[in-house]
């Protein structure tokens, strides 16, 4: 059975059909990319999966459980982690405390009034920071980190409760090209080592083709193509509606950066 099964998911805002009959499945340990031009409905799709938006119709089964109608908190508890397009971290805490916060919530300790939070789950937090190469910065204030480091910190927060699925909305947005490669290599290696599944949206085609097992192309709210990197590259419909002339996607051309 697949880990995530999305069936005929739809959402409209007023008269605009933002997402229309989207169906797909995601297997355990798979890295699936959701791409599409601006306004295609990627973020709407994402927000329905994690409970921030209520879908008009459709079902989302995660590990056999229906997610539609649940709020983001409950969905997180079921084992789905999330990173945001613009990082969301706790600026007034140290790097380690950021991860400890997620661990405290995971262990349902947030109403505890007496013990020191900074002493809780320290080893576990350090382990998670080590995994993303942030251990040496554990005691620094989060508010003064470089953006690339914040992205890595956010990843380790998202991994804190040992999720089975990670939703990453444009994980490399706002990063320098070299940092993008490093971050996605890190994600790939985590997927390989832990058998976690990742669903991500992305604008950088180098990132998408290099790091996804499979791709889906969304246009005007509908999935117009799905398959491996090669299949998508050679799909005429994709070339027409999304790739324009298609020149940007010539396998040899490197460094084409899309904002």
């Amino acid at each position, binding site marked *: 059975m697949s880990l995530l099964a999305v069936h005929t998911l739809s959402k409209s805002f007023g008269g605009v059909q933002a997402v229309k009959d989207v169906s797909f499945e995601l297997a355990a340990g798979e890295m699936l990319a959701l791409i599409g031009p601006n306004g295609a409905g990627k973020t709407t799709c994402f927000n329905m999966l994690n409970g921030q938006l209520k879908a008009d119709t459709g079902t989302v089964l995660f590990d056999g459980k229906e997610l539609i109608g649940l709020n983001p908190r409950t969905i997180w508890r079921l084992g789905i982690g999330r990173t945001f397009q613009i990082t969301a971290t706790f600026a*007034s805490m140290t790097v380690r405390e950021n991860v400890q916060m997620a661990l405290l919530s995971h262990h349902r300790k947030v109403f505890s009034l007496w013990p020191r939070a900074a002493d809780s789950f320290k080893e576990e937090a350090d382990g998670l920071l080590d995994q993303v190469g942030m251990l040496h910065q554990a005691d620094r204030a989060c508010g003064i980190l470089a953006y690339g480091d914040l992205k890595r910190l956010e990843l380790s927060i998202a991994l804190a409760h040992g999720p089975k699925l990670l939703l990453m909305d444009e994980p490399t947005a706002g990063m320098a090209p070299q940092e993008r490669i490093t971050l996605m290599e890190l994600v790939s290696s985590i997927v390989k080592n832990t058998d976690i599944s990742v669903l991500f949206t992305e604008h950088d085609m180098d990132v998408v083709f290099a790091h996804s097992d499979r791709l889906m192309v969304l246009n005007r709210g509908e999935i117009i193509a799905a398959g491996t990197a090669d299949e998508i590259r050679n799909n005429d419909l994709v070339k027409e509606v999304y790739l324009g002339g298609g020149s940007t996607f010539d396998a040899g051309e490197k460094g084409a950066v899309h904002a």
Partner: protein
Amino acid sequence: MGFYLAQFLTGLASASSLFLVASGLSIIFGVTRIVNFAHGSFFMLGAYLAYTFVELMPHGILGFWGSVIAASLAVGLIGVLLEITLFRRIYKAPELFQLVATFGVVLVIQDLALWIWGAEDLFGPRAPGLEGAVRILGEPIPQYDLALIVLGPAVLLGVWLLFNKTRWGTLVRAATQDREMVSALGVNQSRLFTSVFFVGSTLAGLGGAVQLPREAASLLMDLNVIGEAFVVVVIGGMGSVPGAFLASVLIGELNAFGILVFPEITLVLAFLVMAVVLIVRPWGLLGRPDAVLRGASGPPEEPLRLFTPLSRNLILGLVGLLIVAPFIADEFTVVLLTDILIFTLFAVSLHFIMGPGGLVSFGHAAYFGLGAYGAALMVKYLGIGMISGLVVAPVVAGIGALIFGWFCVRLSGVYLAMLTLAAAQITWSIAFQWQDVTGGDDGILGIWPAEWASDKMTYYYLTLLLVFGGIYFIRRVVYAPFGFALRAGRDSALRVEAIGINLKTQQWMAFVLAGVFAGIAGGLYVYSKGSIFPDELAISRSVDGLVMVLLGGIQSLLGPIIGALSFTLLEDLVTRLDYWRIIFGGVILFIVVIAPEGLAGFARKLLPDRLTGKTEEEARS
């Protein structure tokens, strides 16, 4: 039938004058995003200036209306002066600072008015030509009321034309939606803001001036009207002038008929309606959900650190000093120290929801007062002892916070501040108006400590014990997972929800916790004074708390302690003077404009690292 019509018309007449004030407040808020407490002072100045001008000018219709217009324009100019010298410096400051700064202006203007016009109420003349009454369905209706009923819609029309048919109006409406964009399009923002202030304060001045024939000019006008004006603006929708009109009529009529149905709780009604509107439509009847609000918020707070060994020893030394104090100080000092301790707990509890919680409460006095009244009422009606009274106080305050907090945490920013204010006003109104039970203005007297604690020194030690216990507990909570989750929610609401934390519940419980400790402070207070009056629940008490927190520095856990200490000492020094408000207001303005990081933040920069535990990184920056 005629009686009800008369009542209806009276309601409309009051609505007109209320609308003039509220529309000005709303216009100023819409563009500058400043919730201006001083708007009530503009209203008051309008009434006083109209009184002066009427005296100076020739009597008659022309003289009267000429004075009204002259007073409005003069208030408009005062508004401009304040905008240029003060408000312009705080547009980028956090909302809280702005609110408190405008309250500082209220205090300064109050004392200036006292100095110029004296403490006596000034009765203005009746409007020439409109002295009589018209009989409608047999009921006499004052002609002046009818004139006011016409004036309201006329001003609404005028403002509407100004906003919709002039270039200036278009710019103001654009700035209401997105002021950054307007300035990016090459519009001179400062001039636009100044002109908005002129229009807004002129309207407030007009409201005050036309009120003169109906109400004597007095020093209480400012805070009386600002409460209602806030209600109207929030109900109508901040920034919406037609909304302000609609809400003025609603509140005017509510007051006119409410007094027939529930004479005991007329003051509560308006705030109850506001609370309901905020819950059902948080952006008001005709307002828009959140306009775009960009702009820098301050630098992020530093991570929490434990005391360094040196600072821990210093604090222990201080505690030791407080323990031996009664043996070296006279009784007067011991009483003052008791006061300081009580207000320190009050300030620390407020800081807990404002600092780590990020929830600006403008009505924390409600929980202080609920604690005090809870204990006092139990003593009065059930004759319970002091220990039970000190247990009842936090319980009553906690229940109050449980109820109000549930509604409050659903809102944020200015709207949250307004709802906490409404909650405090509701409790104040009950204490003030429900005379049979609470004694109204006369308060409740004769609440004395038990025999064993009646000596000032013993009571001091009791206070010291409870206050230190309270502060230590709150400090532990801030460092505990609960406090961390609260701070996390303040830093990023999006992220806490994405790691499974129910932020609303977290904030709600924090609200209750803060209420409980404010209640303990209230309980200690009532037994130390032997009495309690509605003043302890009033806006000014809530603002005292805010000033303590700001004075000490909101980003520091020691801030509220230092703030409460310096505030209470300062209060003790200046309230003996005639013009203490102007000094107080001056101090507030000084902090907000010159030292927004407060005393603790200021000290932190100067003190050596061994005391503050600064990291090298911070020391360098």
